[in-house]
């Protein structure tokens, strides 16, 4: 992993994105709990190191299909908080102008972002197709997408990884193993301890990484991305973490043992990275506080913007079903 070491500036940039993701999440969760939100929302708490560490490993020309707990990755691609929060409130200024809910369908090809659908793991074959388009055109680019532990049980997971291997496609698949698929724990989902071992069944590399350690996540992803770019084919990366809140905002997740959450809270990826940065002597508390403050300002701005933004015109409801 030392092949892909990060500079101080890069590490602070990564910290900024993680902190921004967490700040956004804290404020959005409170917003929904106050009953001010529209529809549902998904907390990405606990997933900051995965979404930022993996997203940071991509080059601008690479294409990624993030999911609902990958806010950091969207932001890294250039999706603005204003568009994100607008979409959460169903505004015309949202990423998809209120066509799709919360983070679903948050695609923008000008940012090399593919929007996901609820039928997980449906983004995996689509990302594979993106990767196959790079092979078709001899372009040194990489496609990346994500799934949770639950959707590795679907047949499509197998179909797609098998095809990715057969076509030696430049695809990196991140499994965000956060222990629960809605209310179903891992032990009721599969009989193996490590999802990454399934990669062997397809003849591709499978890596396991501590999903709350952003430097480790970055390093393992970067290695896979550059291998794919060089023609080395697909990689499955299992990042182990914990879903710190319910499946969605309505879900109190009483089925999750509190001790388990407490254990993982001690591994809070944002705090963990702060401690690492301080221990490495790369920053001080004052600078971290300044970054936090900047993130709060940005999130507040996005919310104010979204609250004032227009709702979509119902007269447009039938527009855009077809590309003209």
């Amino acid at each position, binding site marked *: 992993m030392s092949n892909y070491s990060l500079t101080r500036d890069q590490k602070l940039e990564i910290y900024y994105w993680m902190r921004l993701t967490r700040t956004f999440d804290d404020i959005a969760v409170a917003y929904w709990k106050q009953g001010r939100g529209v529809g549902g929302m998904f907390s990405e708490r606990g997933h900051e190191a995965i979404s930022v560490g993996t997203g940071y490993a991509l080059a601008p020309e690479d*294409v990624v299909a993030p999911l609902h707990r990958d806010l950091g990755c969207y932001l890294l691609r250039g999706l603005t908080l204003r568009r994100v929060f607008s979409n959460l409130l169903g505004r015309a200024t949202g*990423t*998809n102008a209120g*066509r*799709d809910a919360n983070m*679903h*369908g*948050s*695609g*923008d*090809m000008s940012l090399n972002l*593919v*929007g996901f*659908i609820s*039928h997980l793991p*449906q983004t*995996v*074959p*689509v*990302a*594979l*197709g*993106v*990767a*196959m*388009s*790079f*092979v*078709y055109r001899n372009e040194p680019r990489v*496609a990346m997408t994500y799934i949770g532990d639950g959707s590795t049980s679907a*047949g*499509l997971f197998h*179909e*797609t990884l*098998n*095809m990715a291997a*057969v076509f030696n496609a430049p695809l990196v698949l991140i499994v965000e193993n956060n222990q629960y698929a809605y209310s179903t724990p891992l032990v009721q989902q599969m009989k193996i301890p490590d999802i990454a071992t399934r990669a062997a069944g397809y003849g591709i590399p499978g890596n396991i990484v501590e999903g709350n350690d952003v430097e480790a996540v970055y390093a393992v992803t970067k290695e896979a991305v550059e291998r794919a770019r060089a023609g080395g084919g697909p990689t499955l990366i299992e990042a182990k973490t914990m879903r710190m809140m319910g499946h969605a905002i309505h879900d109190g997740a009483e089925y999750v043992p509190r001790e388990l959450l407490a254990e993982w809270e001690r591994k809070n990826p944002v705090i963990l990275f702060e401690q690492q940065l301080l221990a490495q002597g790369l920053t001080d508390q004052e600078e971290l506080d300044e970054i936090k403050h900047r993130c709060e300002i940005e999130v507040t701005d996005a919310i104010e913007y979204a609250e004032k933004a227009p709702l979509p015109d119902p007269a447009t409801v039938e527009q*855009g*079903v*077809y*590309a*003209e």
Partner: protein
Amino acid sequence: MSQLPNNFGFADPEQIADTTRELTYIAAISEALREEMRRDPNVFVMGEDIGGTFGGAFKVTKGFTDEFGEKRVLNMPMAELGFVGAATGMALMGLRPVIEMQFADFISTAFDSIVQFAATNHYRWGAAVPWVIRAPSDGGLRSGPFHSQNPEAWFVHTPGLKVVAPATPADAKGLLLAAIRDDNPVIYFESKPLYRSEKGYVPPGDYVVPIGQANLARTGNDLSIITYGAQVREALTAAEQLAVEDIDVEVLDLRTLKPLDTEAILTTARKTGKVLIVHSANRLVGVGAEVAAIISDQAFEWLDAPIRRLGGLDTPIPFSPPLEDAYRPNAAKIVQMAKELAAF
């Protein structure tokens, strides 16, 4: 131009440019694909068993690997859900995949990739998905419940898709070219019973049959048969027999099932005042139900009789000849129903 090992009646358009040339329905499909792949480097074919020297279950892509290479003739693992999803990803990047579903019956295996991801994508976040699925459909060939189906209604019911069903060799070529060039996901239902038995003039070179335009296959004054796919031929055969009995039948070939050519439907209904709708797919909640609803909504005052529908039965498609014949519409059943309607 080298001769293909087995051309199955395919003509090379560069060798044959006269207006009398006839192609089979399946040769017209193959010609459209080959010509468009020569024209547009973004167009490629993918599907099960389509590559190498085999060229697909029906040989539509026979010789394609030799001409275009393996990169543009992608043999797929047996995983329709996965490879239709992959086609969506390739289409998002500006390629134009033409997917061969080995039989239309197997399209259900890819349902999520079609109706959930591809069909909704442009509406949700504005990125076009320009792929085509070629779906060899229809029966009468003693192929049983899983190689005879007509599942078009599922897709007509799905916002974001277009659905076409050519009935002639010329339309088979022109509609496929239109489908490939369309920026939306298009399901192209080709009729297996027409593959090698239906021959007709096919213009050489580049032309399209616009999606959304029906074709008046026969003009008449006494009643209208509105149909598509392989039942167009059955309807025209029936019309010949009915003419002998002085029943003058108009036949409207829908050609496109989504979007429907409402104007053409209403025009023929208002002209004759009697309408028989025919399709091979089972009648219940079939495309014909929507056509009937459009007519009763917008041409009620012109009707001189109830709208009649003839379709498959509400059963799986049976294998044994007398059972399949009992299941499926054909010219004799159309004649019978048309006579009753004419006498109404």
